[in-house]
């Protein structure tokens, strides 16, 4: 599948924006002023691409490294940063923190029980199938949460029922601090797809074009009603599982080696070669992203704190049909 130039540029811009946000949240977590820890996704930025290919009415679940999903789906940085600082203006009024939700953008929340999204995505697939409007659900998970039994239930029944779901494995090689070789009997997780009678593919997760083209095919396939598929993106996270952990389970050399495979300059080169981008554009896009982050931080800092009076009124919806 060929990705249009317009979409490629949108992917690039959102990659820059979500990375700027990621750095800001790292700063916040390290300053101690931001309450929840931050699970940085630096190094896994190419994951913006599949999200950029979704329709506005599609559903997407994200892992605890969700910046690429929130930004690409069109959330404002203000409501995200404010949420992390426990402000009333956050997208979840300071209740969620890393559990970000924006239902109108198909972001229906996050389960903190890793792997909890497998069955949630099945439900979104059921909705899409029953509504019959060609919607799809895209579910992101890591090699870590992929060892949960929920994967089996969800993969099996999504295939039995031919649900329009694209399963997206961001294989960064670690389940928190535990290397994949200690948690999986195989290296390439996409291999298991064939046991569920669905297509599976492993791609270089730091190659934006490869990720986008493979995801695009699986999205179209799901939209046509041909059922789920599994795309595995081999990638690596530069930061720790969360900010502040000592990362004693791997060497600096290993991290440095992966940083040379940074998806950003690789993608920039593609766009420069295609003539879609100039060095001036790169500087301008970076400046815009930095300004946007600074403005979001200012907004969060100046926003009122979350309101404790609402704690008891948010539990139940008061409505019924």
């Amino acid at each position, binding site marked *: 599948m060929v990705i249009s130039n317009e979409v490629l540029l949108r992917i690039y811009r959102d990659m820059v924006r979500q990375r700027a946000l990621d750095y800001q949240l790292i700063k916040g977590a390290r300053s101690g002023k931001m309450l929840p820890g931050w699970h940085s996704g630096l190094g896994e930025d190419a994951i913006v691409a599949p999200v950029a290919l979704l329709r506005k009415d599609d559903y997407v679940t994200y892992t605890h490294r969700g910046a690429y999903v929130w930004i690409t789906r069109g959330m404002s940085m203000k409501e995200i940063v404010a949420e992390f600082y426990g402000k009333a203006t956050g*997208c979840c009024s300071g209740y969620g923190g890393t559990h970000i939700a924006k239902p109108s953008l198909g972001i229906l929340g996050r389960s903190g029980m890793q792997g909890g999204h497998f*069955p949630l995505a099945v*439900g979104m697939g*059921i*909705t899409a199938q029953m509504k019959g409007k060609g919607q799809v659900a895209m579910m992101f998970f890591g090699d870590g949460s992929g060892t949960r039994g*929920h994967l089996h*239930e969800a993969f099996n029944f999504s295939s039995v029922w031919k649900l329009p779901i694209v399963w997206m494995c961001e294989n960064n090689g670690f389940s928190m601090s535990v290397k994949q070789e200690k948690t999986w009997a195989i290296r390439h997780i996409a291999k298991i797809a064939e046991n569920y009678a669905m297509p599976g593919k492993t791609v270089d997760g730091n190659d934006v074009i490869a990720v986008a083209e493979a995801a695009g095919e699986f999205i179209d396939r799901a939209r046509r009603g041909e059922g789920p598929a599994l795309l595995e993106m081999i990638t690596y996270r530069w930061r720790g599982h969360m900010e502040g952990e000592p990362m004693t389970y791997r060497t600096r050399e290993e991290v440095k080696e992966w940083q040379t495979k940074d998806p950003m300059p690789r993608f920039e080169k593609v766009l420069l070669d295609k003539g879609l981008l100039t060095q001036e554009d790169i500087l301008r896009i970076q400046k815009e992203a930095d300004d946007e982050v600074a403005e979001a931080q200012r907004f969060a800092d100046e926003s009122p704190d979350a309101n404790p009076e609402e704690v008891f009124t948010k*539990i139940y*919806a008061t*409505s019924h049909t």
Partner: protein
Amino acid sequence: MREINIAQAIHEAIAEEMKRDERVYLIGEAVAPGGVGVMRPPEEIYKEFGEFRVRETGIIEPTLAASSTGAALSGMRPIVDFAMVDFMFPAWNEIYQAGLWRAGHGAAEDMKIPLVYMAGIIGYSGGGFSHSRAPIGNIWHGPGLKLAIATTPYDAKGLLKTAIRDDNPVVFLVHRFHYPVKGPVPEEEYLIPFGEAVVRKEGTDATIVADGYQVTLSLEAAEDLAKEGISVEVIDPRTLEPLDIDAILASVEKTGRLVVVDEDHIRCGPHAEIAFQVQEKAFKSLKAPMQRVGNLNTPIPMAKILHEAVLPTKEKIMAAVKRTLV
């Protein structure tokens, strides 16, 4: 008025609500015709609505619970048939999660999770430690869930229809001994609001609050106690969340004595919660220490003589009432 049993009342509620709202669907292990599911609907429902709206699954309790949360968040209104309440245990995380989800995300954009987790309590069945439990306290403990327990066909239909129309996750339970019990159910549509207890029997000497099958046992106990000159009032709260504490307080203020009967473990069970609320709000009305009758904190053994040793019985309820009269 015509009489139908609880199973039929449940099927009517499901069929009517599926006709009323195309977003309502039924999902569960063996819900389709020929299935072994205890509450499975009659073949006509399957024929009318098809396999998408009566979705038969395998053994996937976590996925039953959480897929329904995902579907509800994206606009559908699932009814999940867990068959027996013991099967909620493998899905505990996901059931709790349904209750936590809305407030956990700050009720972002007023998100709604309209779903029903339906199951039978199958205590006293000889199912042993994993097929006889009544985890009513566990369910009530989870924030964000509503909990209805129907004991008559009239209540089953009215409460289930309310549950399906509610924009929150509702757990709806019926004890298996009640499935075949017949009772009057009007042909015309009606709903039963949550949070309204009913007095099943009026009395003046002591109050019993009981749910599920314990209502039946408590009424039998009350009948025998009446022969001994003891007048017992039996209250069926119908929903524990929300709880009609006012109805319970009004009765305790009249009788001065309370026995709480529930099939769950007494340790941290529903008994303790109800009794605490009563002492907090009507302490001065109490003439004797409150009593509770429930599972005596043991795994449930298979043999009748053994499980009757740990589960509530008519005799144990009668003895508990008498303890309040000393």
